């Protein structure tokens, strides 16, 4: 076992060549995941609400988006944006942007499902009471339903964020310099300690993801106390 290989490159795993070069490693993975979840939240919110719309056209747009994206491997989606951005835009996008767009579009579909389920899970009485006080449908959504539903969804969002953090490893395939790529770089350079390197990388991902999973479980248990219920 040659753990010194890991030890010598540990700062490179954590933030790449950061002070002297572009940020990379675990830091880049987390940045990618944070930007991804932020973008995906808005797309997912729109998709989820469109999915609940009574308008057939609006609804079917959302259904097609959600079903197609959920039916296709993320890797395929990354390739779509990577190889076809040049065809559509006439110029190539940086790898980081391609990966980020793919993550946003991909995660957006899953968040759409979460939003839909979260809104449906609220008791019908909430909407009826809100409409009864004279709010319009949009106002009732905006001021009564969504504030409650979104709060209940926070644990699911955190779980989705954990998934996305794991999925950022796929950005390696098109050449984004994140944690997985730093690992393969060090592995290719040293060629002597693949077991140690990949165990270390797995543990780094694990620490980030497990802390978040744990937090989301705590939150879920905490929130269950304050949820509006049918009686």
């Amino acid at each position, binding site marked *: 076992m040659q753990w010194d290989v890991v030890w010598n490159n540990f700062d490179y795993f954590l933030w790449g060549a950061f002070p002297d070069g572009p940020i990379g490693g675990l830091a880049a993975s987390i940045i990618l995941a944070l930007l991804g979840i932020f973008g995906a939240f808005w797309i997912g919110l729109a998709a989820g609400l469109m999915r609940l719309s009574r308008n057939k056209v609006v609804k079917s747009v959302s259904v097609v988006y959600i079903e197609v994206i959920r039916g*296709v491997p993320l*890797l395929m989606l990354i*390739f779509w944006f990577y190889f076809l951005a040049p065809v559509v835009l006439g110029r190539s996008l940086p790898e980081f942007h391609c990966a980020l767009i793919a993550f946003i579009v991909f995660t957006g579909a899953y968040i759409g499902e979460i939003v839909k389920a979260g809104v449906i899970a609220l008791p019908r009485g909430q909407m009826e009471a809100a409409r009864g006080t004279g709010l319009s449908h949009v106002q009732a959504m905006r001021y009564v339903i969504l504030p409650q539903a979104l709060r209940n969804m926070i644990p699911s969002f955190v779980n989705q964020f954990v998934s996305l953090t794991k999925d950022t490893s796929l950005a390696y395939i098109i050449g984004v310099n994140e944690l997985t790529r730093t*690992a393969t770089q060090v592995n290719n350079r040293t060629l002597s300690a693949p077991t140690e390197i*990949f165990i270390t990388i797995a543990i780094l991902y694990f620490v980030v993801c497990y802390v978040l999973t744990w937090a989301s479980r705590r939150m879920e248990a905490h929130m269950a106390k304050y949820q509006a219920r049918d009686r």
Partner: protein
Amino acid sequence: MPARSSRKQRIDVLNYQFDWNLVLSGQYGQWIIDGVKITLEISAVSIVFTMLLGTIVAVMRMSKFKPFEWFSFAFVEFFRNTPLLIQIFFWYFGSYSILPDAVNEWLYDHDFEFAAGVISLTVYTAAFVAEEIRAGINSIPKNQLEASRATGLSFLQAYRYVILPQAFRIIIPPLISQSLNLIKNSSLVMTIGVMDLTYMARQIESYTFHGFEAFTVATLIYLCISLVVSFMINMYNKHFLLQIKY
């Protein structure tokens, strides 16, 4: 697997000639078919092992024997919270120094990429499957067990005739959707050189520059598989799930 640098070339939008025949027939069509075969093959093998391993891990978690419980807990949490890609790399690049030499030699003589792919897909998905099975069994109210014990059934009989038949109805849909996830995740094994559908689509892209057609065909094939599976889950839910009422 770094991307080709030739991608940087400017591709003229207006002059892009679609050539669907190229990817649907002849050599490249054959590649797609071979790719689909490998994708289905690696998925089928992994699904079988996943169900076995997942059941074992779930049973260990529910046993009253502490070391088993801890092992199962650690297994599930560790493999669920690390990326599949890292696990694939670990089994492919890193497993030789922890496996016995005899196993390594056997693996190198056979299709090592395929085996590493199966192992990583199996272990990764089994962690999720174990949780689904555990959740399914836990969702059966405790008084079902108590009531069946009270009628004179033994513990095993109670599980065999009362708990499991109910639990399976709840467990099967999530297990099918985990299998579907596995099929989609199997696209990652292209990174270690298993020639699955995604690998072939990318290969055609690099040989012919007709990535648009190749990726469209591959995407549609994945989509068909997913839609068929979702359809099966929906049918299943319609026929069986509604009958359970507490």
